[in-house]
């Protein structure tokens, strides 16, 4: 192309304790969508944060529209039209959706917040992503994490933007929300906005991106037109070897029933019943906000159910709180790793062993050597990338944080494991590792209940898939019976019904 690129990056370097990015040379043209991918810890988020002004480079330079660009802060970058949607959620939980959407530019009259204007503007922003159902006056903390992610994206889409960076925006979104997002991104591209799109879902990247940039160990491994490279090639450039995901597996042999819940209600969830057997992986599919996470939390005792009975290993059991659950061999890997999983500011080893300290302590005293060995074992087994086991988890990349939490529950060795988005943010190679671990758990006779927004993931992993829609379990599919269409149709079914009822009411 003859025209000068929108953003040119030259010899950009950044190191923390060790070099993270080395000599990055890149150019982004006006109105293109660039896929940025690479292994966990390759430096994608770091590169984005450099561009968006959250951190500053050690050396190298950036030119935006031909002029030197060295933003001192995120706000500074936003003033130049460079916006970023962070990998980790950064909304203010106590503020309303509308306030969060317009943080920094809240409309006011005579020094007072102009609530009507603010809410109207928020509704327009939400409508862009088809989020008409979210009330702009609701405090953000009352939204599910998937919805929070959508609000965060909506904030990024609005305003005067020339370059938009999305750091794993779809890690927790289901097909429907992804469609809405892609429609908006196409519109933005049409208006000449440049988009950098970070994701580990290669099929998404291939659908939307014009160009693909792969980082490997902080260096540029590939920068080519998307049409020129195949799926397998990208995978090889990312992880250095082929990765096979096999959807056509026979159903696992399942044993006795380990978990049964009957007529669970509470919050969004109404009258949910299901059973998981030893050696079996049961999937839980549904749209964002359909109550999947809530159901897991009710089973685990993290939230109080209003009704429902529970059996563990065939015997009636009571789980009043998570402590009860864990004591009886039930674990929950939460979806919101920052606020509900990680002990930020503490060592990797501590994060890993905290749920099962008895394995690394004697008579109430921690065995430092034993803890170090345990941490090293898990670090190698799951290929967690960190300086050492004392490194604080907030310094790890998103995917590596996820692996730490996954390791925490593997180490706990539960009979029944509830997993909410177990592969959130992990790269293709690590995802295969996690699948293998889950498969091994099932083979060892554990019962697993997996929530995922990625239908393909559930179809790869599970022996049965139960579909949730608007808080109820609508249908359960056996392996071999399901198709993507059938699962999606089931996920929509209860919403379609309420819509029909609403139109019926309106008509009568």
């Amino acid at each position, binding site marked *: 192309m003859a025209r000068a690129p929108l953003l040119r990056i030259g010899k950009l370097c950044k190191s923390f304790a060790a070099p993270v990015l080395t000599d990055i040379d890149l150019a982004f043209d006006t109105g293109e969508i660039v896929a940025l991918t690479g292994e966990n810890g390759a430096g994608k988020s770091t590169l984005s944060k450099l561009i968006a002004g959250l951190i500053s480079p050690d050396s190298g330079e950036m030119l935006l529209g031909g002029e030197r660009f060295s933003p001192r802060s995120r706000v500074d970058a936003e003033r130049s039209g460079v916006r970023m949607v962070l990998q980790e959620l950064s909304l203010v939980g106590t503020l309303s959706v509308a306030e969060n959407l317009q943080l920094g530019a809240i409309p006011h009259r005579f020094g007072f917040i102009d609530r009507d204007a603010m809410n109207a503007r928020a509704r327009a922003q939400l409508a862009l992503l088809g989020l008409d159902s979210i009330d702009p006056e609701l405090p953000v903390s009352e939204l599910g994490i998937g919805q929070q992610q959508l609000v965060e994206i909506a904030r990024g889409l609005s305003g005067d933007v020339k370059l938009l960076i999305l750091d794993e925006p779809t890690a927790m979104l289901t097909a429907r929300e992804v469609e809405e997002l892609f429609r908006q991104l196409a519109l933005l591209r049409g208006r000449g906005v440049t988009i950098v799109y970070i994701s580990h879902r290669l099929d998404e990247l291939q659908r939307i991106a014009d160009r693909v940039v792969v980082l490997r160990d902080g260096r540029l491994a590939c920068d080519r037109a998307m049409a020129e490279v195949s799926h397998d090639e990208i995978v090889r450039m990312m992880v250095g070897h082929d990765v096979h995901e096999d959807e056509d597996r026979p159903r696992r042999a399942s044993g006795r029933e380990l978990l049964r819940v009957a007529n669970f209600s509470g919050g969004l969830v109404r009258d949910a019943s299901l059973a998981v057997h030893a050696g079996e992986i049961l999937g839980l599919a549904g749209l964002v906000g359909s109550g999947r996470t809530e159901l897991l939390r009710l089973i685990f005792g993290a939230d109080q159910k209003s009704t429902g009975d529970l059996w563990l290993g065939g015997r009636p059991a009571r789980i009043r709180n*998570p402590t009860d659950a864990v004591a009886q061999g039930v*674990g*929950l890997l939460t979806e919101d790793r920052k606020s509900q*999983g*990680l002990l*930020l*500011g503490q060592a990797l080893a501590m994060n890993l062993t905290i749920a099962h300290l008895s394995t690394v302590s004697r008579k109430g005293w921690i065995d430092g050597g034993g803890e170090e060995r345990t941490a090293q074992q898990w670090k190698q087994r799951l290929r967690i990338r960190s300086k050492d086991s004392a490194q604080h988890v907030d310094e790890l990349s998103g995917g590596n944080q996820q692996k730490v939490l996954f390791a925490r529950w593997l180490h706990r060795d539960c009979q029944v494991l509830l997993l909410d988005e177990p592969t959130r943010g992990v790269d293709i190679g690590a995802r295969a590792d996690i699948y293998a671990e889950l498969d091994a758990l099932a083979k060892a006779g554990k019962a697993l209940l997996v929530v995922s927004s990625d239908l393909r993931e559930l179809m790869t992993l599970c022996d049965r898939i139960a579909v949730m829609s608007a808080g109820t379990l609508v249908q359960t599919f056996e392996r071999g019976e399901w198709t993507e269409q059938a699962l999606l149709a089931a996920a929509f079914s209860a919403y379609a019904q309420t819509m029909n009822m609403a139109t019926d009411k309106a008509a009568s």
Partner: protein
Amino acid sequence: MKQALGLPLALLALVVGFGLTSEYFLTRDTFIAIANDIPALTVMAVGMTFVLIIAGIDLSIGSVLALSAGLTAVAMQSWGWNLPGAATLGLACGLFCGTLTGAVTVAWRLPSFIVSLGMLEIARGSAYLVTDSRTQYIGGAIGGLSTPLWFGISPAFLLALAIVVASHIVLRKSVFGRYLVGIGTNEEAMRLAGIDPRPWKVIVFALMGSLAALGGLMQLSRLEAADPNAGVGMELQVIAAVVIGGTSLMGGRGSVLNTFFGVLIVAVLEAGLAQIGASDPAKRVITGCVIIVAVLLDVYRNRRKRG
């Protein structure tokens, strides 16, 4: 975590600085005076370190100190109790106050700031009631705790030192300490990891109350009297020492050993300023500045580490 060198260096600088300005500072008497002055402050600062680590705060400790000391004195003077009985009663009283603060905080999910503010008033009022609003003299009855053993060092100082060492090890090496750090870092994450934070939090406040009572006994033994006004404002002095020692008010980070350095810095500052003839108001201004500088240094250190 590695022991930072900043605090010992700051302490050394203070000692050298005062040594240069006042010819009487670098004498045995000064150090003995400091050593015998700080036991109460030290044991309470140890307790406060634990409280801050779980992201709580206890403002009632000055009052609890006065109440426990008052109760012990009255039991000996007016009710004719023997020393062990009366001392046990004082400690039990501190334990009770702390447990109550902790239990109410946990049961109703209130900020400990508010609950302990209530306890501050309750314990102070009770101290007046118990002592009839009069200073209770007990003579040398428990002087043993502060009679110098060797080189002018009292058993109280040795006890405080032992508590510092033991608590430091507990916080670093025990499962209990690990849980406290986890709770202060992310209470919800701990709950979801299957660890119920509530009993641990109550234990920490109970410990704090008991240590405040112990501080009361130490003062009682040294002053030979229980003043219902004892320990007014002491909670702030204790928190200042802990914060100078680098413990975070946000929870999850702190060290008992560093707290001890914080206590020493506060005590040396106090003694040194008095010796060079600083007025009381000037002393307070300077101490205030030191607190702010200490916190700034801590913030700066953390930022630089994060890059």
